C-alpha cells in the first residue's frame, strides 16, 4: 500500500469518527428535562474510538506484513485441520454430533435443555423453509403461518377430541400441507419480490384469523389444557400391561424433538439429492429454462411449498405439546424473519449451515442476556458483518457435480 492510500484511510476514519460523535451526542446526551450534556456520549465515543483504532492499527500492520509471525502458523494450523476434515469421512462428524445430542440432557440443567429444545424446533423450521427458499428459490415471508397451523391443529385435537400427540402429528402435517396448497395455489404464479409480498400477506392473514376466530381459537386468550405427548411403557407387575406415561419432563421432550429434527434432516437430505431436488434447483436458477426441459414448474413449486409447510406443521405440533398453550402471539412476522435469518446466515441450501445458523441465532442471544438492551443492535451488526464477509452463509452449500456421484442413493 502506498503512502497516499494510508492518508486516505486515516482521513476516512477521522471523518467517520466525527460523524459518529455527531450522531451519538443527541442520542445519548439529551436528558428528560431537555438539557444537553456531553458526558455520556463522550465516554461511549471514547470506547468506540479506542476499539476501532486498535483494529485499524492491527489491520495496517497486517497489510504491511508485520504480523506474518502470527499469521503463518495460524494458516498452517488451518490447513492441517482442513486436511483432517477432508480425511475424516462425513459419518464421523454425524455420529459425533448425534452422540453429543443424545447425552446432552444427562449433563446439563433445565435452562440449557430449554434452550436446546428451542434450537431443535427452529432447526426443523429452518430446514423446512430451506426447501422453499434454498432449493426452489421462492422467498417466503409468511412461513410461520404453517407453524401456527400445525400448533393449533394439535391444540384443538388434543382439547376437543383428546387425540394423542403421535396420532395428531400426521394430522397436523396434513393440515399444514393443505394450508400450503391453499396459499400456494394462487400465489405461486408470481415470482420474486411479488411472491415475497403476497406470502407476507398470507402469513398475516393466518395470524389474524387465529386472533379473531373467537369460537374456535379463543382469540388472543389462546388455548389452554393441551396434553403433553405420552408413551406406553410395558409393565410386568401383573402379567403384561401397558402404562401410559406423559412426557412432561424437559429431557424427555428434548428426545421427542430430537427425533423430529433427525427425521427432518434425513428427509430434507434425501429430497435435496433426489431428482425432484435437482428440478427445484433448476427452477431456482432459471424457471423458463426448467420449463423448456420438461419440468412442470407449477406443480413442483407447489410441492416445494407443501413440503416446507409439512415440516413447519410438525414443528408446530411439537411446540403446542411442549408449551401446552398456544396463542397467536407466537406466530408473528418477527418469527418468520428469525427463521429466514437462520437460513440466510447459515447458508441457503446447506443442511449443516442451517443447523449452525440456528445454533448461533438462538444460543448467542442467550449468552448475551447480560447486555439485554443492546441485543438487537448486536444482532443487526452480526447480520450486516455476515453479509459483507460471508454472503453465502457460514457453511455455503457446495454441490458441484456432487449429486451425480450419488446416483444410487437418490430416491425420487
Amino acid at each position, binding site marked *: 500500500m502506498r503512502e497516499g492510500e494510508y492518508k486516505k484511510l486515516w482521513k476516512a476514519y477521522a471523518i467517520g469518527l466525527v460523524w459518529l460523535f455527531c450522531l451519538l451526542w443527541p442520542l445519548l446526551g439529551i436528558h428528560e428535562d431537555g438539557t444537553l450534556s456531553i458526558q455520556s456520549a463522550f465516554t461511549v465515543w471514547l470506547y468506540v474510538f479506542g476499539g476501532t483504532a486498535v483494529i485499524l492499527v492491527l489491520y495496517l500492520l497486517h497489510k504491511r506484513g508485520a504480523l506474518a509471525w502470527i499469521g503463518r502458523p495460524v494458516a498452517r494450523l488451518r490447513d492441517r485441520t482442513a486436511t483432517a476434515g477432508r480425511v475424516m469421512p462425513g459419518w464421523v462428524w454425524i455420529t459425533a454430533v448425534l452422540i453429543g445430542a443424545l447425552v446432552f440432557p444427562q449433563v446439563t440443567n433445565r435452562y440449557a435443555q430449554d434452550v436446546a429444545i428451542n434450537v431443535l424446533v427452529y432447526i426443523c423450521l429452518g430446514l423446512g423453509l430451506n426447501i422453499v427458499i434454498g432449493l426452489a428459490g421462492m422467498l417466503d415471508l409468511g412461513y410461520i403461518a404453517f407453524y401456527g397451523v400445525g400448533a393449533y391443529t394439535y391444540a384443538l385435537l388434543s382439547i376437543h377430541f383428546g387425540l394423542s400427540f403421535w396420532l395428531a402429528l400426521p394430522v397436523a402435517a396434513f393440515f399444514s400441507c393443505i394450508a400450503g396448497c391453499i396459499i400456494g395455489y394462487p400465489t405461486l404464479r408470481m415470482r420474486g419480490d411479488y411472491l415475497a409480498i403476497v406470502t407476507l400477506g398470507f402469513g398475516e392473514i393466518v395470524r389474524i384469523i387465529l386472533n379473531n376466530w373467537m369460537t374456535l381459537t379463543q382469540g388472543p386468550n389462546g388455548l389452554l389444557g393441551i396434553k403433553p405427548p405420552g408413551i406406553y411403557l410395558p409393565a410386568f407387575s401383573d402379567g403384561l400391561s401397558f402404562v401410559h406415561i406423559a412426557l412432561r419432563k424437559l429431557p424427555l421432550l428434548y428426545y421427542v424433538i430430537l427425533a423430529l429434527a433427525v427425521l427432518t434432516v434425513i428427509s430434507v437430505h434425501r429430497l435435496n439429492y433426489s*431428482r425432484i431436488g*435437482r*428440478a427445484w*434447483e*433448476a427452477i*431456482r*436458477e*432459471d424457471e*423458463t*429454462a*426448467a*420449463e*423448456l*426441459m*420438461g*419440468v*412442470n*414448474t407449477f406443480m413442483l413449486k407447489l410441492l416445494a411449498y407443501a413440503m416446507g409447510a409439512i415440516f413447519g406443521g410438525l414443528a408446530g405440533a411439537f411446540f403446542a405439546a411442549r408449551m401446552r398453550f398456544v396463542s397467536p402471539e407466537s406466530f408473528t412476522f418477527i418469527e418468520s424473519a428469525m427463521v429466514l435469518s437462520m437460513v440466510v446466515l447459515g447458508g441457503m441450501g446447506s443442511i449443516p449451515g442451517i443447523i449452525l445458523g440456528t445454533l448461533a441465532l438462538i444460543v448467542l442471544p442467550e449468552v448475551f442476556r447480560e447486555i439485554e438492551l443492546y441485543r438487537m443492535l448486536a444482532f443487526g451488526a452480526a447480520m450486516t458483518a455476515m453479509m459483507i464477509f460471508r454472503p453465502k452463509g457460514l457453511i455455503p452449500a457446495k*454441490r*458441484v*457435480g*456432487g*449429486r*451425480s456421484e450419488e*446416483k444410487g442413493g437418490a430416491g425420487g
Partner: protein
Amino acid sequence: MRTREPMLELREVSSAYGRIQALKGISLQVHAGEIVCMIGANGAGKTTTLMTICGIVKCQGGEILYDGRPIHGTVPAKLPPMGLCQVPEGRRIFPRLGVEDNLEMGAFFRKDRNQIQRDMDHVYTLFPALRERRRQRGGTLSGGEQQMLAIGRALMSRPRLLLMDEPSLGLAPLFVQKIFEIIQEINDKDGTTILLVEQNANIALQTAERGYVLETGRIVMEDRAQALLDNPKIRQAYLGE
C-alpha cells in the same frame, strides 16, 4: 418431400405481449430431417415464434401442429417427452448446478437410467470440453462452452425436433463455425430435425436447406436457403452488402 405431412406446421399463428402484437399470422412448415432457418432483424418475432411453439408465450390465434396433432393448448412441460425441445436464446443454462446436473436436467422426464448414461457419453463425445469440466458449475464455463452445454442439455431429451435460438450469440467466429458443424452433425447422424433462428444469416443459410425471412411479426419471404443467399434484396438487408 413436400408431399409428405410436415413434422411441424404453424398456421396463421399470432401471439402478443400484453397489448403489443408480436406475431401477426405466422405460417411455416418444417419437414422431418430438414434444417430450416428463420432470419430477421431484432424484434422481428423470431424468438417469440419459438417460445410460442413451446407454449411459454401463449398462442392467441391460429394452429400449431406437431406430427399432425395440435399442440397450442399443451402445457410446455409436456413437449420434451413428445420429442420437441428448445435451446433457448442466451443459453439459459443453470449456472449454479454442475455441468453433469445440467445435462441430467435435460433428461428430467426420462426414467431409463442406462440410456441416459449412454446419451450423456454421446454428448461428451460431441463436446469433449464438457467432459473435462463435468464437475464444474455451469456458470463458470466460457460462453462457447455454455452454448455447448445448452445444446447438450437439449440433446439429453432425445429430441426429434430441436428448436435453436441464436446459437451463435456472443461467440467468437471460430466457435460459431464449430457450433454450426455440430448442428450439421446432429442433423446428419442423429437425424434430428432442426428449426434454427439466427441473426448471423450468412452461416445459418449455408447450413440450412430452407429459410424464412421475418419482418415485424410476419413472414415476408420463404425459399430454399441457397436461393435466399443469392437474392440481392436479402444480401443487402441481412448479409450486409
